[in-house]
């Protein structure tokens, strides 16, 4: 069982190496947004601190989110292009197939967030974090990436077509990161949006990362971020498992 999971994981690593555009895209978008916000719009937002320091945690979150489309797409194409039947007949456990995609995505996320951090440092990001803070930040990023990847895998399984699989992850990629305190403080938003922003999972994730990286008090945000990750991850996992079982036609 274990070794079959490893084989599946190796397959997904190869996919990433073979298809570097998925890494490139996940890096490109946050970097473009970073340059736009820092050099073009940044002065218009008054956030009380240097804008690049404010926005970098949000850009890390974007780097986590932009890989999710490829999770849904690759899971969906395994299902719709028939290779899944081959795996099933070879007694590959379904958890191994899905875990391969989810862990593969985690590897990609670690690459993209590292690159985004490096670019942020180049354009003037000045973190005040100890090694422990960095480590906790990395754990939160990894946990949130795993959680969203399980959810994306489920979305990919539930979608009928590859285009649909990509489309269903768009809110995770483009809507929720911006409707959080990633780029402007929540209290600067209109009342209804503010309420949503304050209560949705992306906000505690980005707030905890920001606090960790800028040396501010973390408070309960890190715990909230991890709790959300566990909840989303568990829901995504259970949904994916059920959808996988139904998927055999």
């Amino acid at each position, binding site marked *: 069982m274990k070794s079959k999971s490893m084989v599946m994981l190796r397959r997904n690593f*190869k996919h990433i190496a*073979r298809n570097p555009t998925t890494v490139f895209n996940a890096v490109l978008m946050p970097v473009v947004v970073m340059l736009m916000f820092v050099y073009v719009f940044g002065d218009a937002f008054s956030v009380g601190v240097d804008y690049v320091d404010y926005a970098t945690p949000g850009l890390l979150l974007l780097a986590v989110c932009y890989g999710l489309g490829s999770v849904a797409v690759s899971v969906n194409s395994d299902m719709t*292009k028939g290779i899944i*039947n081959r795996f099933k007949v*070879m007694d590959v456990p379904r958890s191994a197939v899905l875990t391969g995609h989810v862990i593969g995505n985690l590897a990609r996320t670690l690459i993209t967030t590292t690159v985004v951090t490096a670019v942020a440092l180049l354009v003037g990001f000045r973190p005040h974090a100890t090694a422990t803070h960095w480590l906790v930040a990395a754990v939160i990023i990894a946990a949130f990436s795993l959680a969203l990847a399980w959810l994306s895998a489920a979305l990919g399984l539930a979608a009928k077509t590859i285009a649909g699989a990509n489309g269903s992850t768009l809110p995770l990629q483009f809507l929720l990161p911006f409707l959080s305190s990633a780029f402007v403080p929540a209290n600067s938003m209109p009342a209804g949006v503010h309420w949503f922003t304050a209560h949705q999972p992306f906000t505690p994730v980005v707030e905890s990362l920001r606090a960790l990286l800028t040396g501010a008090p973390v408070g309960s945000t890190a715990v909230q971020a991890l709790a959300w990750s566990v909840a989303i991850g568990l829901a995504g996992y259970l949904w994916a498992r059920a959808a996988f079982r139904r998927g055999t*036609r």
Partner: protein
Amino acid sequence: MNTSAIAVSGLRKAYGDKTVLDGIDLDVPAGTIFSLLGPNGAGKTTTVNVLTTLIKADAGTVHVAGHDVASSAKAVRAAIGVTGQFAAVDELLTGEENLQLMVDLSPLSAKDGKRVVADLLERFDLTESAQKPASTYSGGMRRKLDLAMTLVGNPRIIFLDEPTTGLDPRSRRTMWTIIRELVADGVTIFLTTQYLDEADQLADRIAVLDQGRLVAEGTPDELKRQIPGTHVRFRFSTVDELDTAARIFADSTRDDDALTLRVPSDAGTKSVRALLDRLDEYELSADEFSVQTPDLDDVFLALTGRTAEVVAK
């Protein structure tokens, strides 16, 4: 030859209130090619999916390689190989990596695996393209790679679901040759197809599936006796001409509405010339002349009284 590789009895499967398989009985002796013939939507793929443990039947018993698919799915999976309707290759991986993936998932040792991969690439004429991603392969090459991947575990029973659908005639012939070689090695093959000639060329026994029921089963010869063979069709311009021609060719069948006459004949030049010479003798000439070989539609017309409905793909 007297042991059954596949034994199916009373197999039923429905999705909601749509019955897909309505009581199927099959018996496939080891070492033979069995072909399930039918149009799109007849239930061929559903049958393959049940026999290969991918879906559960609603009723009936299925034994593959002596094991019950419901209670010993693992043992069944260890004995079979499946090539599905869509070439199930990993497009981002190269041909060689695809085969290696199968080796890694099988109980083969690393050393044996290397040899198996090299042998299969050689045997399927894929050595040259082995380092290229499967996404660059032609349809025929993908099918070959797909089948090669199925063979990695050296399965004794192989399921081929429409292995030549969408292939050009040359790739089809190659696939047929490969299938024949497999049987020569003692493998049992369960093949589904929409093509009568494919079943005729390859199968020891053919079963015809129509809307979830078997409407005929037998050797290709037994089956062909039930359907109109190759024949020549003449179309005349008047009923008089048709009358005269019908008298000349005693065993012919006439269609007064279309003014056509169907005369049994093989399609050889000799027999066709003889037919035309007889028309000449009676100073008859036909407006149209065609040679018709039976296809799936003829089989269905003969067996069910209607043509094969093409249900959405």
